[in-house]
């Protein structure tokens, strides 16, 4: 609805542009008409917000500390089970930080199937809608009607509100992701692969042990120029080579000079393309893994400290209660040293194969040809 209002205002404004050429009376009538439309759009928007607030008031309320869950009367027992299952997890992970979500509510309702959906008989999906008390919808999520699944969904979305909706700076740094409880060895290994595959030179320096390079690659301090901070001349040349189609469209001669070794042309091209942020030194997961490390090091109250003001470098150090270099060293060590046996050969596969070999061997001896 809000977009319609904005769109209506833009259209009305565009309609008003030719009025400069018309006489004053016509202009005045146009302005009056626009004012009437704007007031009507504003009334629609306020009515929508009133409807959302009215809807919220009609639902039953469940509370788990600072977490407010709304649901219909018929779903109250189910929602109560969900909240009870979720609350321990939330207290353990978020602790005192939960006070920051006071102006958010979580609505649990049954999903109404769309005409093009073909559910199995007896299937019921539930929807968790995250809203502010002012009626703004933050996010919606749908899952099967299972207490465990809905509890996981509720925990995830409470954390999403904490990380992304209450703190836009942290949310942007985390790429609107939730910091996981733990990072598996496989995820650390995939992160290592991404780091050694990245184009920017700062990624390789980070992998080789330069902790300051890791801080740059993780964008812990805002303001540095990515083209100069992330790259050296060789990696700028590689970056332009990766983007060569677009580079040639912009400046074919400059792309050729860059390829021949002219760093000035490489810098000019990258500035024009503004694509250096499309070749990030680390995937966003690297940052969420770093946040996870800081929270684990910091223990109780770490999340609350992470949400305090400051640059990411300051926040992570405060959350972990150790200098940022120590946090980065732990993170770097995990990236470098995580390993596991081959994923392609598991105990199940070995056991099943040996079993079938013996069974088939036995069957061969029991063939009627041989009896």
């Amino acid at each position, binding site marked *: 609805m809000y977009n319609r209002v904005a769109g209506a205002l833009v259209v009305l404004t565009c309609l008003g542009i030719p009025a400069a050429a018309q006489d004053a009376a016509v202009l005045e009538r146009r302005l009056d008409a626009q004012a009437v439309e704007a007031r009507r759009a504003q009334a629609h928007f306020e009515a929508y917000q009133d409807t959302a607030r009215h809807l919220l008031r009609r639902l039953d309320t469940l509370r788990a500390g600072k977490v407010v869950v709304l649901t219909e009367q018929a779903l109250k027992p189910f929602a109560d089970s969900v909240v009870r299952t979720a609350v321990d997890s939330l207290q353990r992970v978020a602790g005192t930080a939960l006070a920051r979500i006071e102006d958010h509510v979580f609505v649990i309702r049954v999903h109404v199937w769309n005409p093009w959906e073909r559910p199995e008989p007896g299937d019921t999906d539930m929807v968790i809608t995250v809203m502010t008390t002012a009626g703004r919808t933050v996010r919606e999520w749908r899952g099967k009607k299972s207490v465990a699944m809905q509890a996981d969904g509720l925990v995830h979305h409470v954390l999403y509100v904490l990380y992304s909706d209450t703190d836009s700076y942290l949310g942007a740094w985390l790429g609107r992701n939730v910091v996981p409880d733990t990072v598996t060895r496989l995820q650390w290994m995939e992160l290592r692969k991404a*780091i050694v595959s990245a184009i920017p030179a700062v990624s390789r320096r980070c992998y080789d042990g330069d902790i300051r390079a890791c801080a740059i690659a993780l964008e812990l301090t805002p303001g540095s120029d990515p083209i100069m901070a992330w790259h050296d001349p060789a990696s700028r040349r590689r970056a332009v080579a990766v983007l060569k189609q677009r580079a040639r469209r912009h400046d074919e001669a400059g792309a050729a000079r860059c390829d021949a070794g002219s760093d000035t042309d490489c810098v000019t091209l990258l500035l024009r393309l503004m694509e250096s942020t499309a070749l990030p030194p680390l995937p966003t997961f690297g940052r969420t893994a770093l946040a996870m490390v800081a929270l684990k090091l910091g223990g109780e109250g770490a999340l609350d400290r992470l949400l305090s003001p400051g640059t990411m470098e300051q926040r992570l150090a405060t959350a972990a209660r150790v200098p940022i270099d120590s946090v980065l060293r732990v993170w770097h060590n995990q990236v470098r040293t995580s390993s596991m046996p081959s994923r392609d050969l598991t105990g*199940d*596969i070995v056991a099943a194969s040996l079993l*079938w070999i013996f069974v088939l061997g036995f069957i061969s001896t029991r063939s009627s040809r041989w009896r």
Partner: protein
Amino acid sequence: MFREIFVTQWKWTRTVVLIASVIAFALPLTALQAAHSAQNAETFVWQMERWGPSYSVLAAAVGLLVALAAWANDHRGRHVYALALPVSRARYVMMRLGAGAAFVIVPILALLMGSVLVAWFGGIPTGLNVYPVALTVRFALAALVAYAIFFAVSAATPKTAGVVLGAIAALLLVQYGLSVANVRYDVLSRVADFLFSSPGLLSVFAGRWMLIDV
């Protein structure tokens, strides 16, 4: 008696085994050669992954050809010689099975040699690991499972083969009938899941076959 069976079966099987061994030795080296053109570790791993199915196909082929070679001459002679031997029939089958299994080991060792060469001299990108032993063990299990399957089929009567083929045909017919009746139940997917997911008969063939991985 096992020695005689071993020697005669080797004569029937050696060509197949030697060709399979050469292919098994060359496969890791060829995959590495193809992956060396990759610009970064991610692309390198992707290139290696593309060669993964080759290992499972080779394992299945080795099992099939060695099993067929084990019984081809007996089938031609209508098992007269086998039935005339002064050993129990079950023991005779076990000796044939054991001899064939021993021959399957040759291409397995060849694959291990090729994989170890890749590990020692391959110039693997930083951050990646080589798994020569895991790949070879998996190849060995796959080849032996394939050998056991085709050995059992070859050792069986035509009636048994007919039963197996009939069962497959019946599955296809049932799936067709269900789709005509507009019943949303995928029988073939269920059967495929049963066979290929652990601990199914063919589960060793499913999944990734990675000599080099993260």
